[in-house]
């Protein structure tokens, strides 16, 4: 079975299904119309080419594209923040050739995806059930977050104050400052020692 085509087919279906759920995506696709973006992932033996029209076609071909990006999957996650592009290029985590505007427009297309999941669910369940489900899910999320936060605080108190297994952040900071001071003193002492060692040699030379 052609594995690259299975992968590109899956990616293509996922992207286009997601885009179809956002009513603003056709507008955001317009600047990309007719462009091609090629992504070469270190982890994949073949490139992924995104061809843009009124939808996105994903190909596994080697042809030249308007913009080519070479990166790893780990870097892909960092690219969500477009302001990090220059930094990633400087760090050689990312190589970008061609029209940078194409890459930026694609990043914006994905980043600005705004899907009303409640609205999507209501198509199948009706408004009331969808609203209640999302309200319950949100409340559950808030409660879980609060509980996790509280649990973290309790564990912190036990580890630092009661059992004294970990140091308090202020104590760590104070210790770090003391280490820095000691390092500076040693460096000064080393320099002074070197100076004193060189003085007899200079006298002998005279």
């Amino acid at each position: 079975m052609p594995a690259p085509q299975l992968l590109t087919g899956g990616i293509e279906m996922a992207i286009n299904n997601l885009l179809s759920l956002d009513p603003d995506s056709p507008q955001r696709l317009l600047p990309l119309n007719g462009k091609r973006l090629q992504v070469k992932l270190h982890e994949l033996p073949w490139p992924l080419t995104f061809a843009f029209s009124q939808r996105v076609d994903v190909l596994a071909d080697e042809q030249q594209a308007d913009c080519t990006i070479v990166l790893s999957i780990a870097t892909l996650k960092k690219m969500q923040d477009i302001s990090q592009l220059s930094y990633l290029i400087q760090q050689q985590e990312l190589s970008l050739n061609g029209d940078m505007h194409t890459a930026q427009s694609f990043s914006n297309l994905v980043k600005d995806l705004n899907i009303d999941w409640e609205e999507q669910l209501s198509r199948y369940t009706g408004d009331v059930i969808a609203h209640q489900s999302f309200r319950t899910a949100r409340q559950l999320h808030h409660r879980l977050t609060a509980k996790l936060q509280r649990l973290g605080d309790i564990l912190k108190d036990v580890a630092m104050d009661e059992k004294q297994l970990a140091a308090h952040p202020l104590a760590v900071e104070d210790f770090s400052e003391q280490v820095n001071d000691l390092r500076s003193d040693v460096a000064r002492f080393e320099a002074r020692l070197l100076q004193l060692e060189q003085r007899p040699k200079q006298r002998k030379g005279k």
Partner: protein
Amino acid sequence: MSDPGQSQPQSDDQTHFGFKTVGKQQKATMVAEVFHSVAAKYDVMNDLMSMGIHRLWKRFTIDCSGVRPGQKVLDLAGGTGDLAAKFSRLVGKDGQVVLADINNAMLRVGRDKLRDKGILGNVDYVQANAECLPFPDNHFDLITIAFGLRNVTDKDAALASMLRVLKPGGRLLVLEFSKPEFDALSKVYDLYSFHLLPKMGKLVANDSESYQYLAESIRMHPDQETLKAMMENAGFEQVTYHNMTGGIVALHRGFKF
């Protein structure tokens, strides 16, 4: 590839129609009847018969096409327009895709499907015989024929006609059923196509004969090396082929220089 049920053409006026031998004039009409019969259920049956894998074979064909915006593409025996739909987006508004099929019913299904998908403007529909294509010389950058060549009566004439309308530098892609690479697979495939396929055709499309013809026509189609030689004889250069799913399907690629 021989089968006890198959007969050999006795003269130049005869050809294969599955395992039967028929007059060359008859074959086109008989193939037309088959496709008239299956046109409405063609896509459903394709998905069912191949378990959806035909989509991956077609994707591979598109990946090998090297098609660029602004180019002219001929999707021959294009049927219900699976390849044409994608080519239409890839060549863009400055390009052109011609969806050609000898069968009016298939062409109509393809046209309706593409229009329903909103694909308009750069796709033209032409009812044409692959053996004598009604296009000027050196006209297309790419020609594809997917699961169509085995139904053509005179394959050599069709390949020569494709070469004529292809631009120098252009490429021909032939996606077609071929000969499985392994004996074990070949046996399983025979069982499937001669016993299960006609029954599926009967059940879904209420037409077992057309699917019996499909299985037989696949066995009568030239194998990988023979088709490669036929393309080279027609004048195509750098002809290569790529087997898929153990050779059940092969993609042949040739260039005109």
